[in-house]
C-alpha cells in the first residue's frame, strides 16, 4: 500500500484538475446544451493570462488577477459566438466552438508567440513527507484549490438563487424566459464560470509545466471525464475527474510495465465501457423518450 500511495496521490492531484475543467464543461452543457470544443483553449488562454500577470505580480496574486479576466473572457465568448446563434440548431453552436478553438489557437500564438513560457515565480512549497511517502507541492496545491472550489460551486448551484435560476433555465429555457428570468445574463455568467474554472486549472498546470500549446491536450481529457460522470451531472464531473485520475494512476502502477503506453488510451477505453453499460454516464440522468 505504501508503494501504491504516491501513485494515488498523484492521480488524485491530476483528477482534481480534470474535475475542475469538466465541471465548467458540464455546467455549460447542462445550461445551454452546447458541447464546448474550445474548452482546451479556455484552459490555454487562462494559462497565458496567468503568465502575463505573473510577469508583473507575485504568482498567487497573478492567479487571482487572471480569474476575473477569464470570467470576462467567457462572457465575451458567450456574447460574441454563442448568443448570436441562439435559436439555431445546436450543431451550429457546437461548430462555432470548433471554429473558436482554431481562432484561439492562432490568436494565442499571435499574442504570446510560439515559444514555451515559464512562470517567473512559484507558489509556496507545500510539499511534505509523511510515513515515507512524499507528497509534492503540486499535488497539495491542486487539491487545496480545486476541491473547495468545486464543492463550493456545487453547493452554490444547489442552494443559491443563482444556482436555482441556472437549473431552471437548463430545465426549460422558454418557460424561464416567460417567468422573467434574465436568461441571457445568467447564461453569460455560466460561460464566464466555465472559463474561470478552466483558467484555474490552466494556472495550476502552468505552475507545474510551463505554458505552451501542449496544454490544449490536457483539455481533451475533459470529454472522457464528462461522459464518465454524465454530461448533465455537474457533481458527477468532479467525481469522475478524481476517478479517472486514480484509474490512470493504477494503470501507471500495474499495467504500464506489461502494456507500455496503455495509460494514454485508458480514459477512452473507460468511456467506451461506460457508454456500453450506462450511456448516460455514472451519475447522469437516465432519459427515456417515448414515441
Amino acid at each position, binding site marked *: 500500500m505504501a508503494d501504491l500511495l504516491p*501513485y494515488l496521490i*498523484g492521480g488524485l492531484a491530476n483528477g482534481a484538475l480534470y474535475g475542475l475543467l469538466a465541471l465548467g464543461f458540464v455546467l455549460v452543457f447542462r445550461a445551454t446544451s452546447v458541447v464546448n470544443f474550445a474548452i482546451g483553449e479556455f484552459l490555454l488562454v487562462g494559462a497565458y493570462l496567468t503568465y502575463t500577470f505573473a510577469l508583473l505580480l507575485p504568482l498567487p496574486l497573478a492567479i487571482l488577477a487572471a480569474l476575473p479576466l477569464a470570467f470576462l473572457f467567457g462572457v465575451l465568448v458567450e456574447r460574441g459566438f454563442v448568443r448570436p446563434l441562439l435559436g439555431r440548431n445546436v450543431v451550429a453552436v457546437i461548430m462555432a466552438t470548433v471554429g473558436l478553438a482554431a481562432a484561439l489557437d492562432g490568436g494565442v*500564438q499571435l499574442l504570446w508567440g510560439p515559444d514555451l513560457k515559464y512562470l517567473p515565480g512559484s507558489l509556496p512549497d507545500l510539499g511534505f513527507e509523511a510515513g515515507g511517502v512524499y507528497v509534492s507541492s503540486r499535488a497539495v496545491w491542486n487539491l487545496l484549490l480545486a476541491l473547495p472550489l468545486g464543492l463550493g460551486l456545487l453547493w452554490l448551484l444547489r442552494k443559491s438563487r443563482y444556482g436555482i435560476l441556472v437549473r431552471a433555465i437548463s430545465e426549460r429555457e422558454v418557460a424561464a424566459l416567460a417567468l422573467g428570468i434574465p436568461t441571457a445574463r445568467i447564461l453569460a455568467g455560466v460561460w464566464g464560470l466555465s472559463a474561470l474554472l478552466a483558467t484555474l486549472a490552466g494556472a495550476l498546470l502552468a505552475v507545474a*509545466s510551463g505554458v*505552451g500549446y501542449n496544454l490544449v491536450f*490536457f483539455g481533451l481529457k475533459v470529454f472522457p471525464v464528462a461522459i464518465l460522470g454524465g454530461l448533465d451531472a455537474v457533481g458527477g464531473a468532479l467525481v469522475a475527474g478524481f476517478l479517472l485520475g486514480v484509474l*490512470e494512476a493504477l494503470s501507471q502502477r500495474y499495467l504500464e510495465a506489461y502494456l507500455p503506453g496503455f495509460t*494514454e488510451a485508458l480514459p477512452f477505453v473507460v468511456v467506451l465501457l461506460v457508454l456500453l453499460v450506462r450511456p448516460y454516464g455514472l451519475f447522469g440522468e437516465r432519459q427515456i423518450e417515448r414515441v
Partner: protein
Amino acid sequence: MKRREFLQRLGVGSLAALGFSRFALAQARPVKLATLLPLTGPFAFAGNAGREGFVDGVDYVNEVLGGIAGRKLELIVEDTGYDVAKGTAAFNRVLSRERPEELLFVYGDSTGLSKALAPEIARIGLPYSATSFASELADPEKYPTIFVFGPTYNDMMEALLRQIRLQKGKARIALVYSNTEFGRDPIPYVKERAKALGMEVVHEEVTPPAFTDATPVVLNLRRANPDFVLLQGYALSVEPLILRAAREQGLRAQFMGTYYSAELVLIQRAGPAAEGFTVTYHNPYWYDTLVPAVDEMRKFRQRKGRDTSYRPTYYMGSLAVALGVAEAMRRAAQAGKLTRAGVVEYLEKIGDYTALGLTRGYQFVNHRIPYTKLYRASVKDGRFNAITDWLKLA
C-alpha cells in the same frame, strides 16, 4: 537590302531575340528550397526558430555568397502544425505549384511526416531532408534522395551508451520515451546495443508526447532503480518536469537525452535538477563565439537589424541545412548539373565543406552525418558544456 531580305533578317532577329530573352529569363529564374515546418501546434517554438535559421541562411547565400551561380535562392515556407495530414497537404501543394527544374530541395517536418512522404520522394527523385533524425530515413538504397543532416537517433543513442560504458561498466538503464515515431525510433537499437555492451535495460516507460505530471513516471523509475535514464521523443515538452520530479523524489540516476533535448530552456526550467543532464548535439551553440559561423551570423543579423540575442539549437540546425544545401547547389551549378539529381550527387560530395564550422563537415555516410559531441548541463553556467570532442559513430 531588298525588302524580302530585310523581312527575313527581321524575322530571324526577332526569333533569336525572343529565344535569347526566354533563355535569359530561364537563367534568371530562382532556385527554390521549400520548407514544411511546424509553425503552429505543439512544436511551434522549434518550427519558428527553424524558419528563422532558413531565412538567415537563404538571405546569407543571396546577399553574401552571390546566390546559386548567379541565380537567386528562394525560400518557400509552409506550416504543418506538426500534423502528418496537414504536412502531406502542404507537400502536395508545393509540388503541384512549383516547377520541378526550380524546386530542388524540400525540408520537411517530423519523423511521422517524413516516413509517410518517403516513398513518394524516392519515386520522384526529390532531394529531401527533415527535422527528423530517424534511422529509417538514412537508407540511400531505399531512399536515394533523402539526407539526414546529422547523426540518426540510433547514432545519438550509441554515443550515450558509449559514455555510459565509460562511466559504469555494467550499468542499469531505463528508457523513457514518447509513444510517437520520434520516441520509438531508436528503442530497438538501444535495447540490442545495451545488451551487447553488457548493460541491463531495467525499465521502459512509454508516455504521451506531452504530459503535466511526471510523478508516476518517476515513481516507476524509482522502483526500477536505474543508474542511467535515457529520454527520447519529447523536444523539451516534459524533460524539465521529469528532472524536477526526479530530484523531488530523490532519484539518483543520471539523465541523458538526444538532440532535441539539448536546448538551454531545459536548464532554465529544470533549475538545479538539470545539473549533469547529458545530451548529444552536433552544431555549435549561439554562445560558441569562437566558431566563425556564429560570429559571422551575429554580424549578419546585426547588419540586417535582426535580434542578435541567443538563437536556439533549432535555428543552428536549420542554418546548417540551408548552407549545406546551397553549397551542394552551387557546386552542381558549376558542374552544369543544377538539377535534382545534381543536388543529390553533390550533397554526397561536399564532405570538405563545414559552413564556417556549423558542422564538422557534411561527410555523409549512408546519407547521414555520423558525428556528434556530448554536452553536459551546467546550472552554474546556465549552459551546456562539451564533455567530448567529435565522436565518430559509423
